[in-house]
C-alpha cells in the first residue's frame, strides 16, 4: 500500500521534537528546540501563532486539553527542558480570521495566545506532558525520574499537584493517558513501562511492563478497545515496536473503606506482550502513534524510516507502507495520526471551520517532524 507525502511545512531551521494535533479542532502544535511552540492550521498548513518568550530552554512536548462540556477554551500545555510546564490559552475574543487560500501567504501571530501558568516542581528537564481524556488531569514526567499528576481549576490558572510518582529508577521519557479510563502509562530510560491509577485517594503504580531491552521512548494506547479493555503500543531504542494488552485487574475488591496502604490486595494490573511488530527499524525508534480511526500504527526513528502497520487479526500485524528517508537524511522525532481536514478552507471565521465536519471519506493523515525542522504530512492511499 503506497504512502505519499502530500505536504511539507518548512517550519524551522532547528529540530522539531514533538507534534500534536488538537483532538477536535484543525490545529497542530509543534514543540521545537528554539524554546517556542508554534500553532499551525490543519486547514491551510499556515502558521497561526507562535508561543514564545516564557520557556528558557527547548520545548520537548506539547499537549492539547480536550474540549469537554462547558470547557470551551483552547488550552495547550508545553513541557520544557527548563524544568517547567507552561499553560497557554487562546484569547477567544481576539483571535482573528484565519488565513484562507487567499494567496497572500501565511503570516505568524494571527491568533493571540496568553501564557497563564507555569507549573514548577520538577528538578530538571520535563520530557513529556499529556492531558487526560476529559481534561481533568495533566501528567508530566522528567529526567528527575518522577511522574507528576496535576489537577486544574476551571480557569486553567491554578494547578494542584495530586501526586508525585517515583517508582521509575531512571528518566521518564513519555506519559500517555488511556482514551477513556483514568489510567496513565509512563515509559522510561529504565526500559520499563509503568501504569498508574487512582486507588481511593492515592495514585498508585498498578502495573509494570518489562520486556524492552533499552529505553522506551514513546507509548500510545489503542483508542478502539471495548469497555474494560486496554492495549498499548511502545517503541524503544532496542529497535522494536511492541503491543501489550491488559489481561486482568486484581485486588481492591473488598474493604472499600480501608486505606489502600493497609489493604492486603492493592490494585494490580497484569499486562502481557501481545505482539512484536515486524522489525524494520535500525536504530532507536522515537515515536509511535495508534490511529483511533483506522487502528493502524505508525513508527519513526533515528533511521529516517516511516513505517505503517496494520493488524490483520488480533496480535498479528503486517507492514502496509514504508518510506525511507522520510525527512531526507535527518532523524525523525515525532509521528502522529490526525484526521484530514479540508485543505480548501472557506474564507469564513475559524469558528466555522471548527464546526465543519472532516472529509466525508474520513480520511486520515500522518504528521511527522524531524531534525530538519520540517513538518511532513503523509497519506496512506487505499488500493481498491
Amino acid at each position, binding site marked *: 500500500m503506497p504512502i505519499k507525502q502530500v505536504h511539507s511545512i518548512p517550519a524551522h531551521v532547528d529540530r522539531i521534537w514533538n507534534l500534536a494535533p488538537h483532538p477536535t479542532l484543525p490545529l497542530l502544535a509543534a514543540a521545537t528546540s528554539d524554546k517556542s511552540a508554534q500553532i499551525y492550521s490543519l486547514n491551510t498548513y499556515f502558521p497561526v501563532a507562535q508561543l514564545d518568550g516564557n520557556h528558557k530552554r*527547548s520545548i520537548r512536548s506539547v499537549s492539547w486539553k480536550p474540549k469537554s462540556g462547558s470547557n470551551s477554551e483552547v488550552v495547550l500545555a508545553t513541557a520544557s527542558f527548563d524544568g517547567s510546564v507552561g499553560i497557554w490559552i487562546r484569547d477567544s475574543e481576539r483571535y482573528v480570521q484565519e488565513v484562507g487560500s487567499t494567496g497572500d501567504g501565511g503570516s505568524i501571530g494571527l491568533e493571540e495566545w496568553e501564557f497563564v501558568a507555569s507549573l514548577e516542581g520538577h528538578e530538571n528537564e520535563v520530557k513529556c506532558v499529556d492531558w487526560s481524556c476529559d481534561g481533568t488531569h495533566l501528567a508530566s514526567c522528567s*529526567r528527575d525520574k518522577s511522574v507528576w499528576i496535576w489537577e486544574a481549576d476551571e480557569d486553567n490558572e491554578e494547578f494542584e499537584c495530586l501526586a508525585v510518582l517515583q517508582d521509575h529508577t531512571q528518566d521518564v521519557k513519555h506519559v500517555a493517558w488511556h482514551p477513556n479510563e483514568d489510567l496513565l502509562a509512563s515509559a522510561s530510560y529504565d526500559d520499563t513501562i509503568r501504569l498508574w491509577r487512582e486507588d481511593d485517594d492515592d495514585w498508585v503504580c498498578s502495573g509494570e511492563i518489562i520486556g524492552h531491552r533499552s529505553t522506551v521512548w514513546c507509548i500510545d494506547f489503542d483508542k478502539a478497545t471495548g469497555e474494560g479493555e486496554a492495549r498499548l503500543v511502545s517503541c524503544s531504542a532496542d529497535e522494536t515496536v511492541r503491543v501489550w494488552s491488559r489481561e486482568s485487574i486484581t485486588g481492591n475488591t473488598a474493604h472499600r473503606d480501608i486505606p489502600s496502604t493497609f489493604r492486603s490486595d492493592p490494585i494490580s494490573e497484569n499486562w502481557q506482550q501481545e505482539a512484536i511488530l515486524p522489525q524494520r527499524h535500525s536504530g532507536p525508534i522515537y515515536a509511535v502513534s495508534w490511529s483511533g480511526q483506522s487502528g493502524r500504527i505508525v513508527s519513526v526513528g533515528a533511521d529516517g524510516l516511516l513505517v505503517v502497520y496494520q493488524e490483520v487479526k488480533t496480535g498479528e500485524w503486517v507492514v502496509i507502507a514504508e518510506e525511507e528517508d522520510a525527512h531526507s537524511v535527518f532523524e525523525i522525532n515525532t509521528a502522529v495520526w490526525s484526521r484530514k481536514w479540508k485543505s480548501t478552507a472557506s474564507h469564513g471565521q475559524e469558528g466555522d471551520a471548527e464546526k465543519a465536519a472532516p472529509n466525508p471519506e474520513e480520511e486520515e493523515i500522518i504528521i511527522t517532524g524531524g531534525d530538519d525542522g520540517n513538518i511532513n504530512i503523509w497519506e496512506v492511499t487505499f488500493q481498491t
Partner: protein
Amino acid sequence: MSEPINANPKVLSLDDLPTREEIFGNSSSIKATFPHSALDGAFPTMSLYESYSSLLLLGEDGLSDDDIEMKVAPELSSGESDVSDDQSDIEEHEPIDEQEIYDLISTISDPEHPLTLGQLAVVNKPDIYIVSTKDANGRHQKISRVIVEITPTITHCSLATLIGLGIRVRLERCLPPRFRIEIRVKQGTHQSESQVNKQLNDKERVAAACENQQLLGVLSGMLATFLYL
C-alpha cells in the same frame, strides 16, 4: 582542578599520532598536502560544499554531467531536492574517512590535563569505524554510521561521559547530518560501560546537556583547538 582523577596518565608523543601523511607518504597525492589539524582538515570539504551550493542556486543547468548522473540515483520523495542530498553526493568525491574523524576528535583537550585526547590515547584511530550500508540494489544508503570507541585513561574515570559528550558535540557540529554518531567506551575499559554508553547515545539527554550553560562552558574549553598542532 585540585584533585585530578588520573594524576599520572601515559602520554604519547605528538609525532607518534596517526596523520594523513602516514598513509600517503610524501607522494604528490592531493590529500597529503592537507594539513592535519582539525580545522584545516574540515575546510576543503566545506568550501567545496559551499561553492557547490552556490552553483545550485543557478539551477540545474549549471551542473556538469557528472553531477547530474549522481542526482538520478534515489527516488526523491515528492520531487524535493534539498541541500543535504546534494551534500551527500559531494562526499562521493571527497569521502569522509577515519583519519578525518580522528583529526576532528583527537585534538579535543582532555578536561583535566593540558593534553589532547589523541596524546592520552583516549581516542585511537583503529577504534574509529565508518559504516555505510548498501541497499538491495547495491546503492549506498544515504545514512552512514560513525562509531567511535573511547579508551578512558583509568577504568573508574568519572569524566568518561564528559569526554564522550565532547566528541559527540564536535562530530555533530562538523559532520553532515547524514552521519549517525555512536560513541562507546571500548569494551573492558570502564566499570560502568553500559551506563556510559547508554547516556552518550541518548539523543534527548545529549540535547538537554548542550543547553546547560555550565557544561557548555567546560565543553567549549575542551573543543578549543590547539592551533600549534
